[in-house]
């Protein structure tokens, strides 16, 4: 569990990342989280997992490959999800001015480590 938390905390060290979570994709339940105060982990996990699952089905129905990254840009921030192995999803919540490029690289690295 320590290495899991270290992986999540490494993601949160990217400037502007408010939190990172490992989520069970089919259940929408939090496996592990490193979140800033005020972020409702359980709610974000449930909705992010549902959103990602639906987007994956949409992509597959349209004959596209499974999305490697889902990025939802909102007015005051961005939600990023990356598959992290069998039925697991890495979710990050970023502020509006976060370094999203670096965040995506860290998320993909973290997802690879978690999946291995």
């Amino acid at each position, binding site marked *: 569990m320590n290495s899991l938390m270290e992986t999540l905390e490494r993601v949160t060290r990217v400037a502007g990342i408010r939190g990172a979570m490992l989520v*069970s994709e*089919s*259940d*929408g*339940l939090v496996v592990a989280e490193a979140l800033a105060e005020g972020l409702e982990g359980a*709610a974000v*996990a*449930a909705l992010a*997992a549902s959103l990602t*699952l639906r987007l994956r089905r949409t992509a597959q129905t349209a004959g596209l490959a499974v999305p490697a990254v889902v990025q939802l840009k909102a007015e005051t921030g961005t939600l990023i999800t990356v598959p992290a192995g069998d039925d697991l999803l890495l979710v990050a919540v970023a502020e509006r001015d976060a370094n999203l490029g670096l965040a995506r690289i860290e998320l993909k690295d973290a997802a690879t480590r978690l999946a291995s």
Partner: protein
Amino acid sequence: MRVIESWVAPPLQAFLDESGARLTLLMTTAGQVIAQDGFTRSVDVMAAAALGAAINASTDALAELTGAGRFGAVLHQGSKQGLYLRAFDTPRGRWIGLVVYGAESSAGLVQLFFQQLTEALAGAAPAGPGNVPVLAENFEHELNASLRSLFGR
């Protein structure tokens, strides 16, 4: 959706819309049905209410026995459907929610929107007496009255 008391309907409808639950049953801890959605036969509601109340009583007893205080919810995940059972306090007494969901929803979504349902019910409940204990001699009459309201017969 069928409800015994009309004030339950808007919060429950919001929960149904958001969660995508297949079956939902609200009942008192004595097994008296408050509302249901998705059941087509009264006999299924009777059985589910009795079993839900019994599971809740069993988990409460188990929690006390193990010093866990009170369990928040019971979650059974099957290969095609999941079951979420949770007791919660309302201004009208302690109620139980039983929700069956499929692949179109998830444990996380049901948990999230059920929490919102409990808060909405707490806000919508009119002032009045809480759960009235059901005496054995009244139980069948109460049950039949609830089922008539829920199934219109």
